[in-house]
């Protein structure tokens, strides 16, 4: 392993260690445990009640699929939200904040180089956030399976979509940290996150109302902030094989994505990620510390 790679691995390790030792990580773990417990309980009652309620109507609407996809979609939203919170907190103040507090300088003066350091910090934060998202996603899936016996049409694609989405949020947050103070960074990134989700809802509403303009606005915004496009595509993948009235109702629902990912979105998401990290590295390389 070259010296540069060894140093990068050290910084990745440092980022992960720092992240795990932050109090917010403990708070996220507690919240996650609470969320999963509530989710399991909610899923259990939802499957039980809807099965009784929908008796006799299963010909046109599959209650198990409808309930499973809806509550699992909700779980995916919560997973994305918690993953985004984690990604933002793990990258909070990584450049400007740490430079102002004097934490960054002793590391930057080492031969590692600024770009390697920044990329390593990103890898640390993104891998921790992505691992978290995958764990919560599969835990929610296990609970859905256990309580209602329902499985999504695609299991692994949506998981990877969510993981890539939080990696993009981590990259955006890192970029913001090169320019903004800690508080401003947190506010801006959460506003961008909210704007992305709102854009996704707009596209969804546009499709439901058959409004091309609204749908286009939502889609353009989703591509400008591809974490939303990935989230919507992940929701879509859950039910992409569900046909009939159940499929239509689910697609129009709040947790039913109407857009498939396609190779274009995935390629764009990766290019976007690389572009954002490269821009952050460029700004960082020119910054006086």
């Amino acid at each position, binding site marked *: 392993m070259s010296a540069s790679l060894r140093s990068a691995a*050290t*910084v990745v390790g440092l980022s992960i260690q*720092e992240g795990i030792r932050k109090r917010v990580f403990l708070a996220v773990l507690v919240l996650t445990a609470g969320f999963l417990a509530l989710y399991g309980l909610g899923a259990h009652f939802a499957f039980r009640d809807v099965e009784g309620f929908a008796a006799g109507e299963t010909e046109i609407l599959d209650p198990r699929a409808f309930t499973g996809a809806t509550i699992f979609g909700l779980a995916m939203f919560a997973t994305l939200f918690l993953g985004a919170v984690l990604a933002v907190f793990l990258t909070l103040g990584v450049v400007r904040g740490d430079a102002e*507090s*004097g*934490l960054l*300088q002793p590391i*930057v*003066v*080492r031969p590692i180089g600024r770009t390697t350091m920044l990329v390593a910090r990103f890898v640390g934060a993104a891998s921790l956030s992505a691992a978290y998202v995958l764990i919560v996603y599969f835990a929610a899936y296990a609970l859905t399976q256990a309580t209602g016996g329902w499985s999504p049409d695609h299991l692994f694609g949506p998981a990877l979509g969510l993981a890539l989405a939080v990696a993009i949020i981590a990259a955006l947050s890192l970029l913001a940290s090169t320019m903004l103070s800690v508080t401003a960074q947190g506010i801006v990134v959460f506003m961008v996150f909210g704007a992305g989700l709102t854009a996704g809802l707009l596209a969804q509403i546009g499709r439901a109302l058959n409004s091309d303009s609204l749908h286009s606005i939502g889609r353009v915004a989703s591509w400008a902030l591809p974490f939303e496009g990935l989230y919507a595509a992940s929701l879509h993948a859950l039910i992409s094989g569900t046909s009939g009235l159940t499929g239509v109702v689910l697609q129009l629902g709040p947790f039913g994505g109407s857009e498939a990912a396609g190779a274009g979105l995935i390629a764009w998401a990766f290019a976007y990620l690389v572009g954002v990290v490269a821009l952050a590295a460029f700004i960082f390389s020119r910054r006086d510390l």
Partner: protein
Amino acid sequence: MDAPVLAVRDLSKRYGRQQALAGVELEVAAGQLVGLLGPNGAGKSTLTKIACGLVRPSGGGVEVLGQPAGSPRARAALGYLAELFRFPGWCTAEELLRLHQRLAGSGGGETERRELLELVDLGAAAGKRVEAMSKGMQQRLGVAQALVGSPRLLLLDEPTSALDPVGRRIVRELLEELRRRGVSVLLNSHLLSEVELVCDHVAIIAAGRLVKAGTPAELAGPGAVEVETGSGVRTFEGATREEAPRIVADLVAAGESVYRVEVRHSSLEDVYLEAVGGQTG
């Protein structure tokens, strides 16, 4: 003559409209301990930061062992302790040094870590977390961190600002030890007495310009010979210690009674105050 370890050439730095440094020239030779003095805001920290690649110069340049400041090879050759620094609170002293060993590519292992901690009198605190350390202990740990990988050049920005007299003495002795080992040091400090005690060379910066440089003895220059005679105290400005016997002999020959003779030196403080013209940051 060997190439300087640190060479600052016509260095200037501008932050917006503020000229932080203007045409500064400075050299630090191998094994030399250079003190950088100046009021707050004079540009001392900016110069140090440019030397270690944290700040980009607006003009001129800095070389470390012939390599442009900020380049990987230049950074590999230096150790740095910032005036304002912080280490991860959850790290122990030992873990912090291990982290910096990895970043610096040092193969010193546990022996180096133990030796460095002993050197700054933190041998007993190897397992102590940074957040549980006093500011003084953290500053000494910072010095140890800067020495990881046996750098050829050490850049210290106010390394004793949080230290008590015992801590200062430890750092002073450490600096003398480093000089014996041939390490070059650029020391930013407000403590004139400390600089006078340990530095081979002193550079005074005011308003971004180098206003005076030389050895402490050269800067201090001749002082005066003060003689108390029967007709009062007479001061011979500019006279040296060697001239004192002649002055006394002349006075006695002239019929004066001499009661006391004192050779006065102008202190570094006098020189500093004269050089900076009473400026303060």
